[in-house]
């Protein structure tokens, strides 16, 4: 077996991360190769020594046995974030409204602008209705187009 392949297998074995089937084959191999067996033992000693060095015993552990207060803390944080968002939202709206009020371009309407337009169009339909009816090939779309054009003209101008 190549040295680097053998070393990798021995390392993984010493670190406890070798597939059991592979380990069984490796043990058979080591039984017939004393040099490799010595190398395996040396690596195992290094890993055992390192394990002993990194582990600490007798560490006092005093942790709360439940974490419900974490849940409450999380909920409190969520509630606080929601309240903060609400306050910021109201604040921004108030600022925008105030700025618009100062510049005098506040538009207050109880119905959407599009709805207003269609009402005006219908209201001004009468003056052109006769003309439209005299031309039966005109589509409904055309009728409403004419009506809307009539709606944009001042009533006095149309009377003339």
């Amino acid at each position, binding site marked *: 077996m190549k040295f680097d392949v053998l070393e990798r297998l021995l390392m993984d074995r010493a*670190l406890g991360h070798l597939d059991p089937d592979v380990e069984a084959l490796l043990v058979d191999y080591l039984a017939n190769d004393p040099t490799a067996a010595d190398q395996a033992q040396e690596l195992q000693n290094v*890993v055992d*020594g390192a394990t002993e060095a990194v582990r600490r015993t007798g560490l006092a552990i005093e942790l709360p046995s439940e974490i419900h207060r974490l849940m409450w803390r999380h909920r409190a944080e969520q509630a606080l974030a929601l309240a903060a968002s609400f306050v910021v939202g109201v604040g921004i709206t108030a600022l925008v409204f105030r700025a618009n009020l100062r510049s005098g371009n506040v538009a207050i309407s109880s119905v959407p602008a599009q709805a207003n337009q269609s009402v005006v169009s219908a209201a001004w339909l009468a003056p052109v209705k006769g003309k439209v009816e005299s031309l039966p090939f005109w589509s409904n779309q055309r009728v409403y187009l004419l009506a809307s054009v009539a709606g944009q003209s001042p009533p006095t101008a149309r009377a003339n």
Partner: protein
Amino acid sequence: MQSASDVIDRLYGQHANELYGYLARRCPDAATAGDLVQETFLQVVRQSDQLAKVAMPRAWLFAIARNMLARHYRRRRDLPTAAELWYASAPESKDDRLAVMREAIINLPAELRDTLELRLEQELSYEEIAHVLDIPIGTVRSRLHNAVRHLRDTLRNQEEKTQ
């Protein structure tokens, strides 16, 4: 089906103490370690919608704990390193070989030491370490092998000096 709260409770029962052990040796005092465990689980609560997707809960917890620890150290730049804290506070050993080993571990490059400690101290699998450190599993293997090789060479040199 378990609620998120039950799952978090179970994770806390199973892993809080080992997380505390891991953090305690990297913090200047036990209270900080306890706070970081709480912060870790608070983060778990915040990410409770992801619990179902977590394939390796233990590795996931260690990854969060490491992030909390890193954040803590970023805030407090004057703190000694985790390795200095741990190995300095370790009880004096009459075994020279163990003392040499501790010294050798302190002198390992940080990424090798971190990887080695996750394997030997926390007994995380290679896959879990890869998840915690967010590195490929091949990198975990090579780091561990390099660390062991480093330690072996140090011990060999030490033995040659004493003979």
